[in-house]
């Protein structure tokens, strides 16, 4: 495994500082740069955990038909409008094909991939991956078109479907009376969104079952919605179910005697439908594998994303379902320097392997020995049209250990390694369009024995003439490579993983009035011309696992 570096989004934490890298919460808070967004308004990094997601369009992932939102509700989020009848195999989830009876053989034992309406009826749905076909469960069609409508009848007559329709009717007046919950109050957390159906259901549940709290996503209960719901909760009349779910007669799957009987007479495990095969169903279905029905393909959606605090749009895709373009795309990669990390000793070993003919050789896991010192390289690429100055810091603070941890454990938590980074700020030149297309340029980084070469300003100045590994190693185009060093103690175990604070100073184009509204990560140096601003963000660096050379610990060199 190659060393990795990820970027921090502070949304999971109450402080601007990230969790210690050895904590499980760390991996949840750090992301690859390409997965992050940037809100210019808030001057902050956003991630997929914190952005607000809105559906901007639906489409069928199989026939790629774009489905208008209104009909999505009517069709219960399934592909039906398409003439090609999109169904999924209940056994393997492959897309099913409509085939006529006695499919003509095309040489490999499979029916022809494109149906021709000229075949013989009856038609059925066939899986060309696992060879399941709908005739097995008694579903055949007279015509190869309009299959969805034919199956719809069957689906809609299920007792559970009827019951759900009645429930919806029952709550309809209440839903119409309650104020719209969407689009209110800017500046609130995104969790204030409560689906009216959820609200109604939770209110009914809270009334009927003592001790069940109503579903109140935090914050929201504080103001408006709490009051609204209290005034409304008693207006919902009682609902009397017509069907007792779970005892819908003779059908399997309800947990009744017939189920026990079925399981008792199982001969092979394959007779039982797997959990996965039944999981996606809205209601209980038969556990018998031979009862599985073709599944409607659920629609996919295109999504817009908004900043959770100021609600500005960060991502807005083009309307067309299969377009990969965006009307708005504020991704962090356009604001923050891209940082990649490598271990020269690992790269040297890898280059050796590749030269010896193993072109596909992958970096190996755990290539750092306890008790040794290794240099590492950080390569910074500036996406901005202005040069930037970068400063690096290692986050040194230790996690508070649990109070009941034994002293040994306490000792083991001491950082088993020390990281040295360039202490001075270093420059990265501006991004220029032309560099992107310069294919002939040498972009293979540095020659290991040529550190003091091109533009290597401050390399190893503080190293008592011994090592020249820490400092700026190379500058070319909008890339600056700096060297760092990690000293691993003899007792060290586990991963060499640390948090690194990156601050970069750039020239600001426009004075930002929002600055007074508290953006702690960015500070202004008011008295300089032109106006300079600094933005800081955390990263986590994972250099890999430490190898312990000898279990007995008496390794010598």
């Amino acid at each position, binding site marked *: 495994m190659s060393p990795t570096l990820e970027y921090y989004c502070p949304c999971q934490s109450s402080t601007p500082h990230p969790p210690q890298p050895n904590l499980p919460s760390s991996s949840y808070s750090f992301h690859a740069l*390409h*997965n992050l967004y940037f809100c210019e308004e808030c001057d902050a990094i956003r991630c997929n955990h914190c952005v607000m997601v809105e559906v901007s369009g639906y*489409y069928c*992932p*199989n*026939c*790629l038909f774009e489905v208008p939102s209104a009909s999505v509700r009517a069709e219960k989020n399934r592909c039906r409008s398409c003439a090609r009848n999109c169904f999924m195999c209940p056994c*393997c*989830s*492959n*897309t099913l*094909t409509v085939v006529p009876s006695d499919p*003509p053989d*095309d*040489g490999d034992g*499979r029916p*022809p*991939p*494109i149906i*021709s309406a*000229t075949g013989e009826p009856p038609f059925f749905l066939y899986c*060309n*991956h*696992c060879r399941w076909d709908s005739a097995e469960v008694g579903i055949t069609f007279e015509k190869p078109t309009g299959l969805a409508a034919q199956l719809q009848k069957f689906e809609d007559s299920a007792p559970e479907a009827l019951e759900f329709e009645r429930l919806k009717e029952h709550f309809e007046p209440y839903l119409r009376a309650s104020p719209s919950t969407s689009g209110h109050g800017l500046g609130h957390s995104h969790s204030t969104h409560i689906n009216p159906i959820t609200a109604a259901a939770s209110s009914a549940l809270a009334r009927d079952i003592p001790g069940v709290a109503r579903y109140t996503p935090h914050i929201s209960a504080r103001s408006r919605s709490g009051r609204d719901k209290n005034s409304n909760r008693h207006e919902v009349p009682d609902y009397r179910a017509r069907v007792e779910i779970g005892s819908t007669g003779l059908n399997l799957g309800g947990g009744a005697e017939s189920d026990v009987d079925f399981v008792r007479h199982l001969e092979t495990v394959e007779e039982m439908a797997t959990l996965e095969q039944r999981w996606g169903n809205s209601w209980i279905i038969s556990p018998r594998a031979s009862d599985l029905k073709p599944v409607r393909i659920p629609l*996919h959606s295109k*999504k817009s994303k908004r900043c959770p605090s100021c609600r500005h749009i960060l*991502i807005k*895709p083009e309307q067309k*379902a*299969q*377009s*990969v373009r*965006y009307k708005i*795309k504020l*991704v962090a*990669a356009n604001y923050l320097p891209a940082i*990649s990390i*490598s271990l020269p000793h690992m*790269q040297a070993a*890898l*280059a050796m392997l*590749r*030269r010896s003919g193993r*072109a*596909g050789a992958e970096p190996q896991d755990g290539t750092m020995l306890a008790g040794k010192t290794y240099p590492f*390289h950080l*390569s910074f690429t500036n996406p901005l049209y202005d040069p930037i100055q970068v400063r690096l810091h290692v986050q040194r603070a230790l996690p508070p250990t649990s109070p009941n941890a034994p002293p040994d454990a306490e000792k083991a938590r001491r950082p088993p390694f020390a990281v040295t980074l360039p202490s001075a700020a270093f420059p990265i030149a501006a991004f220029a369009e032309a560099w992107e297309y310069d*294919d*002939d*340029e040498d*972009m*293979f*980084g*540095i020659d290991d024995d040529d550190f003091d070469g091109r533009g290597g300003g401050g390399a190893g100045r503080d190293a008592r003439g011994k090592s020249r590994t820490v400092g700026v190693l190379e500058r070319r185009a909008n890339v600056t*490579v700096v060297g760092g060093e990690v000293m691993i103690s003899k007792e060290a175990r586990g991963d060499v993983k640390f948090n690194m604070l990156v601050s970069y100073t750039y020239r600001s184009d426009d004075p930002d009035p929002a600055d007074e509204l508290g953006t702690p990560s960015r500070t202004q140096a008011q008295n300089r011309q032109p106006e300079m601003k600094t933005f800081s963000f955390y990263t986590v660096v994972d250099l890999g696992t430490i190898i312990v050379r000898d279990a007995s610990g008496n390794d010598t060199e």
Partner: protein
Amino acid sequence: MDLPIYYVRGEYIETDTGNKVSRKATIAGPQNIILGGKTVIANGAIIRGDLRRTGAGHAVVISLGRYCLVGEGCIMRPPYKTYRGNFNYYPMKVGDHVHIGANTVVEAAQIGNHVEIGKNCVIGKFTIIKDCAKIADNTVIPPNTVIPALSLFAGSPGQFVEDMPESTQEMVEAMTKGYYTRFQPDPSLPPANTR
């Protein structure tokens, strides 16, 4: 900081438009194959331009765009079917910035731009892969599957796993361009044909 990917000089033929085709690849029916430029056909790859539609005249069987990679040991074979009693091959069209991992078999009808296909995959006949999609290593895509834009597929049969990030296009483009630049003759070795 990525390492160069060296090959022995002379092992690859470089065309005017910068395509690099291994001498150890099998290019059948080259007159029916189009390479867009700066595309790499690796050692052991097999491209079946000879499997063309019956009938007279010149026909493009397989076309690949710019900055593509057909990995080591890949097989690119046009899809075929019997329609109204006639057996026929159909053309395969691959866009720009498409990487196909080692030992993958492709019988797709259409692959868009900025698509990554992993190692050891089987891409079934008449599969359509839209822009910026990704197929994970070891995935089997059954015939006639449609892979929507910006989606990741994995498994056997291949299934939708998640949406690809919004910056996929830029990332894949940077990756394919970087790969082409890094793919170069080993300066420390003499050309293969002099040894």
